[in-house]
């Protein structure tokens, strides 16, 4: 292996080491103090950047300037006063969401909100972390941190320590319980309303749901409240598989559920964790058929002179 004097500041190792340092400072703070939240945001940013750089440091390079990519590849740009620039954290999170299906949209939204607080703290006179109880964010924070560290095959405790791991396990467990309880309450409420409908009203709604689902894209499932046909929507995970059948291009894409909608009883469930809690968390496959011209974006060629008698001999 090539000896290296100093690490590229964008290496996975550098970011994780920084995360460890920031996590130590975070844990030294009083949990009710704004400093706990502030350092938690800095820690999570390091973890997020480490997640992308585990694949390659190129993934955080700001591609608008090629020298940033060159730097990410381990080279020294021959530009005077070069200062490497990486993409903003929102872009980092978007890339993570696209690459790692385990990092759900809910986690994306939470993390972005958490980072926005950090930005407000640094860039404004607002006290972004004051007055926010940890119960409102710490369970999800640990779930996000653990998910990202898992993608890197990095032990949670190697960043946060053993003691904090025990706390995190408890909080993540309670988050799952809360989610399960909340979604069950929603399902029960819709079930109760459904049961109160007359048989003829139910039959009509069941029929309408069948027709509606046949006209919309989505994965058909039984509604957990009324058993009618409901539609599950999702986000793509992983690359699609492509095959050819009867001169058509078939594209199959694995999807991770994100929303459920039932037009019969009106039940709507949003978010993977809630869907998973009520047994609808399994991935499904979305199949699309294309003709080759459509798939490859080939415009059909028409002879511009066809039918133009002026030029026919």
């Amino acid at each position, binding site marked *: *292996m*090539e*000896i*290296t*004097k*100093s*690490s590229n*500041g964008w290496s996975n*190792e*550098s970011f994780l*080491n*920084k995360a*460890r*340092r920031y996590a*130590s400072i975070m844990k030294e703070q009083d949990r009710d103090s704004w400093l706990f939240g502030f350092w938690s945001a800095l820690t999570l940013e390091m973890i997020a950047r480490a997640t992308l750089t585990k694949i390659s440091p190129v993934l955080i390079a700001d591609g608008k300037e090629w020298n940033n990519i060159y730097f990410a590849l381990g080279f020294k740009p021959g530009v005077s006063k070069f200062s490497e620039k990486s993409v903003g954290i929102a872009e980092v999170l978007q890339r993570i969401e696209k690459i790692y299906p385990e990092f759900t949209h809910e986690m994306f939204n939470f993390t972005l909100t958490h980072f926005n607080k950090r930005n407000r703290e640094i860039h404004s006179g607002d006290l972004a972390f004051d007055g926010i109880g940890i119960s409102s964010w710490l369970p999800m924070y640990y779930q996000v941190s653990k998910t990202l560290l898992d993608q890197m095959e990095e*032990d949670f*405790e*190697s960043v946060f*320590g*053993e003691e904090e791991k025990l706390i995190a396990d408890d909080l993540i467990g309670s988050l799952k319980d809360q989610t399960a309880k909340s979604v069950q309450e929603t399902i029960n409420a819709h079930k109760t309303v459904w049961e109160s409908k007359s048989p003829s009203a139910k039959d009509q709604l069941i029929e309408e749901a069948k027709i509606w689902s046949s006209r919309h894209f989505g994965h058909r499932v039984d509604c957990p409240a009324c058993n009618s046909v409901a539609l599950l929507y999702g986000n793509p995970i992983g690359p699609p598989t492509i095959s050819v059948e009867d001169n058509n291009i078939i594209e199959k894409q694995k999807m991770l559920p994100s929303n459920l909608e039932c037009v019969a009883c009106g039940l709507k469930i949003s978010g993977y964790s809630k869907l998973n809690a009520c047994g609808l968390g399994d991935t499904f496959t979305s199949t699309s058929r294309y003709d080759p011209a459509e798939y490859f974006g080939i415009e059909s060629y028409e002879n511009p002179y066809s039918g133009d008698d002026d030029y026919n001999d």
Partner: protein
Amino acid sequence: MKSILDETGYIFLKEFKPEKTIREICSELGQIQEIPNFPIIQTLKPTVQRESKINTYSGNYGFGIFPLHTDFAHWYLPPRYLMLRCIVPSKDVYTYILQVNELIKDLDRLTILRAMFIPRKRIQGRISLLRFNQRDKNYNLFRWDELFLNPANSEGKEVAEAFRSLDRKECEEICMKDIADTLIIDNWSMAHGRSKVKLADAERLIERVYLEGLN
């Protein structure tokens, strides 16, 4: 040879091919590691403190004991192997070596995972945290150097203390007392040091080369 080193962390070859130069030995056994701004073959001779550069072991310890350390511990990826070859022997100077795994066997797994150091000086204008046990799917290395590293967290302090409080009797002692005695050390898994040097041994001369890999 590589498999022996992987297991034991070092090989001591007694009066090994005295007719050959260290460069020839290195070419036979492996691949020389070139280090920018360093000669390929370095000669190590006991030097009094005041005559040595302040950023060297001689500059700090002179004829005294060199504490256990790994070479270039403050570099992100240090050289893998070092070869020491005796040119002018001494019967009373010892190289101490120790498998780092032995030293840390009583430390908590998390202490080992989390221990970090900071180099005392910027390198190439930058300074980064360095893990005591830095690993990747391609490598697994330990680093320690009293002189060039400072602990960066409580776990780092624990590791530093483990090194400082080690009883030297726990180390292997290698005496390069004959010409061409050759010692190859895995710099990623072994720490090494040197015993005190008496004035009578002031002419002791060792050649050192770093190796990138072994055959």
